[in-house]
């Protein structure tokens, strides 16, 4: 069940990005605040992509879709 870690990782990522975003916005660095959102989204996507690949592989092998 180590795959479950990804859900908690995504939650922690979102919280960290939110805190950073609020901090940078308060400091008046709006462009950096937006950049944190983009980077957080990219990291999340990169983490989820292998899981999606796993799903496609599983469905392909079980239902014999080639």
């Amino acid at each position, binding site marked *: *069940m180590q*795959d*479950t870690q*990804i*859900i*908690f990782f*995504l*939650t922690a*990522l*979102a*919280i960290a*990005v*939110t805190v950073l*975003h*609020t901090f940078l916005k308060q400091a008046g660095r709006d462009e950096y605040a937006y950049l944190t*959102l983009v980077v*957080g*989204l990219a990291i*999340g*996507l990169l*983490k*989820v992509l292998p*899981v*999606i690949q*796993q*799903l*496609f592989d*599983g*469905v*392909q092998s*079980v*239902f*014999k*879709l080639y």
Partner: protein
Amino acid sequence: MASFASIFTIIGLAIVASMLAVFLSEGRLPVIGLLVTIAAGILIFLQILPQLSQVLQLFNSLADKVNINTYYFGTILKIIGIAYIAEFGAQVCRDAGQGAIALKVEFAAKVGIILLAMPIMAAIIQSVLRLLS
């Protein structure tokens, strides 16, 4: 016994993921909530994958015993797979609020299913024609 334990695993995973997704979708980065939904759906499917393949093996051996053409059974299996994966993708798009893209995904799946079912329909029509003549 394995299936008995894993239903509780799945329910726990689903509840935790739902709470986290609702929590995240109200924050600054709602897309991460969507990612959590996708990850939870995939993890649940990966949990039931071994049992599903057991069931399919049983069906396969039954089809062998009663001498159904394995080509037809394989086609039905492929159709179920396409329907499942397309429904998964379409539901993710619909959760994100993109109903139009979800409809296109479903349409593509329908085209693929029709394409797979074409030889079976041709066989049915041929046998009807043979009965008529």
